Every structure is written in structure tokens, then in C-alpha cells.
């Protein structure tokens, strides 16, 4: 009874319990659990091969977990397909950028808007009035999103012609276009120089505030992690080493050992 009296606002955005998966006998992720409050900027860190990206793949339905439950805003999404999970409200970016490289920057974002602005295929082929109306709305919304990331000037470029840092931003814009509740960022600062990283930190902050977004990010750049994450979970060999407030976690001896060795 006490559980039910909780107000909806107190339900965490993401609640994961006892999540595990093994590949050929090797436990890639073992007993993973996490609880992320709404509006929180949460970091998932750990050495290479700790299973961070696997966690993302489990959360987004790329892999089906062997055990565990995943609750998004109270709804059980365990074992669902990637598309269903995206429609339920999780969007992500990828460690190795996965843009629609032969499409324009604008069209990349418009693909993200696909499920929110609809008209039938026949409407599109016959160019019925609904086509022009919805396309106009899509263009406006897409340009709005591109502006947030300072990409509106490049909207007509082919995505693969953008410089690296901007490609990462475009991926975030595309993910946001699906109007998610939870945004997963897989190493957003990888390959960026310190200036770009600093700028990215600001953008992530802005996204959180502007869209009231809950964000879970994987990152190696400790400056970024300590700079913007409110809470951290540390993974090592597929298991949780520790989790909690950022300052506490980063001073944990075990974390330092895991990163630097004995």
C-alpha cells in the first residue's frame, strides 16, 4: 500500500534490476541495477571492456537480457524490440557514430521525427495537401532542433561531410527528435578536443534544462564526467563496482584501482 501512495513524480525515470547477459558463457553484464531520477544527469563509467555499451544495448533492446527487469517511467520494457523501446521513450547515440551518412543533415533529424509527424505513403506519392502541411511542420521542428546544436547553417550538407564534432551533435539532435524521456549518450566526447568537449558539456546541460531531459551517458573523459554528472555508476568486468554521488564515487579507492591498476 505504501508503494502505491507514492506520487508519480517520485517514480524514477529508469529503474533497472538484476540485469544480466552472457555471450558464450562469458558474463558480459552481471546483476546490473540502477535507478535514475527524472531530470538527472547520470554517468556510467568504467575501464574498456567493462560492459558499458552492452548495458546500453540491453536498455535499447539490441540484445535481450538473460535476467532482469527494465522499467521506464514505471512501464516495463524488458525484452521489447528496439523500435518499441524508442517509441516508449528511450533514444540513444552510438560510440562509433551511426548517422544516415548519404542523407542531408536536415533529413537525418526528420527521420528522427518520423513517428511524430505522420502522413501516409500514398499522400506522399500523390503530394496531397497533408504532405505539404506536415512536411512544413517537420522542417520547422527539425530546424529548431538543429539550431539548438548550432547546425542550422549546415542543414543542407550531406551528413558525412560534417566535421567530426558536429556529427556527434547531429546524432544527439536526431535522438532528441524522437521526443524521448531518457537520452542515452555513448561516449559523446570521444575524439573531441578540449574546446569542443567544453562546448559539448554546455550543450548537454542545456539539453537537460531546455528539454527537461533525463540523461545517462557513458564517458571516458573524467573532466566531463566530474563536470556535469550528478551521479555515477562504475562498471568493472560486467559488475557494478560502486555507485552514488559523483564526488564520492570518484574518491573511492576501488575506482582509482580499477582505472589505474594496483
Amino acid at each position, binding site marked *: 500500500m505504501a508503494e502505491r501512495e507514492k506520487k508519480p513524480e517520485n517514480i524514477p525515470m529508469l529503474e533497472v534490476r538484476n540485469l544480466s547477459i552472457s555471450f558464450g558463457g562469458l558474463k558480459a553484464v552481471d546483476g546490473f541495477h540502477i535507478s535514475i531520477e527524472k531530470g538527472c544527469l547520470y554517468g556510467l563509467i568504467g575501464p574498456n571492456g567493462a560492459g558499458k*555499451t552492452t548495458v546500453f*544495448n540491453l536498455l535499447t533492446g*539490441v540484445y535481450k537480457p538473460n535476467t532482469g527487469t527494465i522499467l521506464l517511467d514505471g512501464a516495463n520494457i524488458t525484452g521489447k524490440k528496439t523500435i518499441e523501446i524508442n517509441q516508449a521513450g528511450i533514444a540513444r547515440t*552510438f560510440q562509433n557514430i551511426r548517422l544516415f551518412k548519404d542523407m542531408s543533415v536536415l533529413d537525418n533529424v526528420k527521420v528522427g521525427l518520423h513517428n511524430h509527424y505522420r502522413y501516409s505513403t500514398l499522400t506522399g506519392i500523390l503530394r496531397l495537401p497533408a504532405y505539404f502541411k506536415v512536411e512544413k511542420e517537420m522542417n520547422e521542428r527539425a530546424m529548431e532542433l538543429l539550431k539548438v546544436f548550432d547546425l542550422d547553417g549546415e542543414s543542407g550538407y550531406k551528413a558525412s561531410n560534417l566535421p567530426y564534432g558536429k556529427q556527434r551533435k547531429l546524432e544527439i539532435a536526431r535522438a532528441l527528435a524522437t521526443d524521448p524521456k531518457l537520452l542515452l549518450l555513448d561516449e559523446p566526447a570521444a575524439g573531441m578536443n578540449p574546446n569542443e568537449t567544453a562546448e559539448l558539456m554546455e550543450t548537454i546541460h542545456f539539453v537537460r534544462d531546455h528539454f527537461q531531459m533525463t540523461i545517462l551517458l557513458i564517458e571516458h573523459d573524467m573532466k566531463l564526467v566530474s563536470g556535469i554528472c550528478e551521479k555515477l555508476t562504475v562498471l568493472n568486468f560486467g559488475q557494478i563496482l560502486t555507485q552514488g554521488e559523483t564526488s564520492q564515487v570518484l574518491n573511492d579507492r576501488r575506482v582509482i584501482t580499477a582505472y589505474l591498476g594496483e
Partner: protein
Amino acid sequence: MGFLSYFISGVSLGAVYAIIALGYTMVYGIARMLNFAHGDVIMVGGFVIFTIVSTLGMPPFVGIVTAVAACTVLGVTIERVAYRPLREASSLAVLITAIGVSYLLQNIALLVFGSNSRQFTPIVTLPNLVLAGGKLTISSTTIVTIITCIVIMIALTLFINKTRMGQAMLAVSEDRGAASLMGIDVNKTIAVTFAIGSALAAIAGALLCSAYPSLTPYTGSMPGIKAFTAAVFGGIGSVPGALIGGIVLGIIENLSKAYISSQLSDAIVFAVLILVLLIRPTGILGRKINEKV
């Protein structure tokens, strides 16, 4: 006895498919390309033997050796001129060039030999094997074909596993970039692969034309497609896969010709291929490819 006879000639046809399929499978495994012209190399081999044996009247042995040599040179030349410039290009571009080479070989043959079919003199002149008091006759061509296929399979397996060049082939098929960093000459390895595949095509041509002795410029293309089907069926890139795929396909084709319909035998062969691929998307012995996210 009828069944056994159809079955054995099916194995023999399958053995030819298997030998052709080896060429497809090795080239695909190492150069990652679908060599559409491979079937036409068989036809060239057939015409070389035809010219030497039937026109010049020399012994079949000379014909085969010349055909093997000619096809080897042809295969390496095709690779050097038409495929190597496209090594880093899209696989579709390479496919189109291969189609171009296929047209080229067919039309050269058309110019030289005309479109009328030529009667091929079987190269195997041994007596047929008569069993069970005359109830079952196995032609000598059938026996020679099956034995040749077994010998080639064993030799090729030994070559790949025991020689430096064979190991280099495995390395290139695994990871071309890494292999070249390890000091393997990728171009040379691919050239050798084409040489072997084309030499085998010449032998397949000799056997195929002995079993089905009419020779036209288009003789190679359908067996080529079927052998490619066999290679995919067995798992492309796999040597034992080519053997299994070839034999199974040959048996299915011959039995369906005998018991169902000769017009539908090709449809049945292709239907079986589709079924196998739907159940095992990379063929019977093919490796599963996982995309990393």
C-alpha cells in the same frame, strides 16, 4: 536399380558443380567478390580441349594440360586487368565488371567458334563399369569425375593447411588489412587464388563436356550459376561447404529430372537453396556474421 543409377550420375554432376564451386568460394572468401565470369572460364577450357583434341587430333591428355594452362593464364589476366583496379571500389562495381568480362568471353568465343553447338569428344575413353549382371551401368566418365573431385578436395585442403601460400590465403580471407601489415603480399595471394580457381574451372570444363558433350559459347553460364548456388548453399568461403553443396545440388537436380519434371528441375534446385538459406542464412557450413553495435 534405376534410382541408384540416377543417384550416381547425380553425384557425378554434383562433383563437377563442386569443382566449379571451389573457384567461386575461394575467390569470394579471399577477394570478397562474386566472380560472375567464372562459368565462362569453364567454357573457354572446353573450347581449348575441343580445338586440341577434335580439331588438331592430339591426345586428350595434351588437351587437358593445355586447357589448364590457358585458363590459369586467363584467370590471372582477368584479375589483373579487370578486377585489381577495383580492389577498393564498391562490390557492386566489381560485380558489373565481372559481368562485362563474362559477356566478353562469351562473345569472343562466339566470334571464334560461332553459335552452333560443337560435338565434344569425351576425354575419358575407359570402358564403362557394368554391375549386378548388367542391371547397373556406371559410365567411366562418372567414375573419373568423382575420383577427380575427391583428389582435388584432398589436395586443396592440404595446400591450404600445409603451405605458406595456403596460410597466406587464410590470413587474407580473415582480414586483408592485417594480413598485409604482417608482410603478406595481398595482390599475389589473390592472383594465386584466381590461378587455382581457373585451373579447376578448366578441369571442370573437361568433365562437364565429357558428360554433356555439346559445346556452345554459353555452355558455362548456367552450370556457373548453379555452382555458385552450390557454394552459397554449402556456405560461401568454405571448401568442404562447396563439396557438400555441389554434391547435394547434383543429386537433387538429377533425381528431380528423373522423377518429377525435367523442365522444373532447375526450379526445384533453386527452391531447395532458398529453403536452406531461410533456415541457415549463411549456408550449411557458413560462419555467422554478427554486426557489432
